[in-house]
């Protein structure tokens, strides 16, 4: 089943007087259980692509379907719901609420779903167990290491059982060893929990953890290869 279906997506920005085309007719699909790395140098449009995939921004042109939902013309409010239901975000700098403990942080997506406290707690505990942090549920972010904070963020991303985990440079703020552990967690979630993962990275070694690498240059896909070999361009 196709989780992401992008057809001729382009995105234009106005930067001062100049029109910048950040994405040019990008088309691809991502199937369930894939672990995709999107790579490209800065300015290649990978962040823009991530924003469009994450329903944080609309494309200027083209069609985008996420888990069967056409999101091209959805309202801001509907986009919020789509993000909440179908996407689990993982950020470079973790972005946890500093004055809430781990379990409270993990509960947040469920709060916006309107779930009751008891249900939330159970799901959040389960998610924290999945990332191996059941011992530190009541710690504040400041009491956790960077790797542990990122694990809390990953628990927050998976707690609502989204269609896709969207990670923006998930190891960017971590040392290599901790970064590798996070990647192993991703592989674990991908293999054992059958989660679909899309990550944006500029590190070749990190990208290699995925089973498919999409390379962007100047807003265009220049290669799209799975670990099995070149698929299509």
């Amino acid at each position, binding site marked *: 089943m196709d989780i992401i279906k992008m057809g001729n997506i382009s995105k234009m920005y106005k930067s001062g007087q100049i029109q910048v085309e950040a994405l040019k007719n990008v088309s691809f699909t991502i199937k369930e259980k894939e672990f995709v790395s999107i790579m490209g140098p800065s300015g290649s449009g990978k962040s823009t692509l991530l*924003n469009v995939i*994450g329903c*944080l*921004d609309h494309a200027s042109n083209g069609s985008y379907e996420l888990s069967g939902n056409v999101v091209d013309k959805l309202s*801001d*409010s509907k986009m*919020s*719901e789509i*993000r*909440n*239901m179908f*996407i689990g*975000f993982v*950020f470079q*700098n973790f*972005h946890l*609420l500093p*004055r*809430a403990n781990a379990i409270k942080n993990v509960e*947040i*997506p469920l*709060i*916006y*779903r*309107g*779930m*009751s*406290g008891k249900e939330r707690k159970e799901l959040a505990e389960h998610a924290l167990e999945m990332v191996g942090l059941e011992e530190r549920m009541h710690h504040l972010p400041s009491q956790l290491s960077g790797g542990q904070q990122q694990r809390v963020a990953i628990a*927050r991303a998976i707690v609502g059982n989204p269609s896709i985990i969207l990670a923006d440079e998930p190891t960017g703020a971590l040392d290599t060893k901790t970064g590798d552990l996070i990647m192993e967690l991703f592989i674990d979630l991908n293999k054992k929990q059958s989660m679909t993962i899309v990550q944006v990275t500029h590190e070749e070694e990190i990208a290699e953890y995925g089973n498919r690498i999409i390379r962007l240059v100047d807003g265009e896909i220049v290669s799209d290869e799975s670990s099995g070999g070149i698929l299509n361009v």
Partner: protein
Amino acid sequence: MQSRGNISSLLIRLKFSAMMALDGIGSNLLRTFLTVLGISIGVAAVVSLMGIGEGARKSIVSQFESLGENVIVIKSNAENITFDAKEAEEIPSRVTGIQYTTPVVYTQDTPIRWRRDESKMNIVGVNEQYPQIKDHKVLSGNFFTSLHVKQRSPVAVLGYNVANNLLNGRSPVGQTLKIDGINYRIVGVLAEKGKDKGDGIDDKIVIPYTSALKIANTKDILEIWAKSNSSEDAELAMIQLGRIYQRKVGIGSNIRPGNGQEEEGMEPDMPMEEPMPEEPSPEVPGEKENVFEKGEEPLTITSLNNLVKEADQANRIMTVLLGGIAAVSLLVGGIGIMNIMLVAVTERTGEIGVRRALGAKKEDLLIQFLLEAVYVSIIGCVVGIILGAWAVTIVSKYGLSAIVSFDSIRIAVFVALTSGLLFGVYPAINASNLPPVEALKRQ
């Protein structure tokens, strides 16, 4: 079921927004404190100033009550202007609308002897119409009669407290009391008027003015009280009285409220009066000094109606002043809130982005930041009311009558909440309108 589910999920989100707002004001306590201070100073100003205003109003009201309804006081402030008893008696026939009149004679620190106890007391000398003029009820016995007055009889009517103290609550009617060395028969006791009311009559002794003149060793009556049927009559009577006494006092003298009817060229034998300083009469309660202001006038005619007008005007000025203070405090406190909220939104832009990414809608953030502003104003309000009440107690300790009125608290709460909402809206809208992508970028 569906709608119930929606409502409960809405409540869950609302609760979270409220919690996040609390978290927000807790995140920088010093800043919150300073913002709260801005609001609370404004609220305290409103509460304390309105308290002082209300206290002033209350004291004017008690002056009304001491004067009595539709009572006109004709008072000489100059030694050479005096009235005689006949003059007072003639007023009802000369002035339309006047029903009752009495000369009023005060004595001060008159020696009183009750059995073996000696004391000094203030005595009021009036005629038999006094109870009608001041709406006094006689509790036991009777008020003295016109015959008593004419015959300068040694009879006395006691104020409620005076009577109570003599025989521990039993009626002293029929007993005798020595006033200035002469035995007076107690013929009646007046009903209680209450503290600070009715000129403090509860603590006074009332005797015929003829007797009082004797005690005071004078023939000069300096004060006449007249009672009209209605406030319209009182107004009319004031004008007529003004005319009558204009003649008596002389040209150019400004008699209130007879101004506008100044007639020239009358009574050339009366010299132009140099205003005489008013002799302070301890008999007159201190507050009356305000009532009979402009002591430089040789003769004043005062009625409740004038006082009502003056009090009205004073109240209006007070209201305008307080309105101004409330508006300024709203502005200053509100600007403080707006300032701090704009900073808070800027500071938490990244957080806003993350929350949007996790599924927060615009409303969630709007409510959060609006509530944060309202929290600040609520805290400011509570602190301000406490500060204001404290200021009121201090002020009233120094003799100014001031009270914390419910009105002032209501206005303060309204003003503070309005300013919180009003000035919190813009930053909150700013927060909710941040595009998620932009917000995330600014981390």
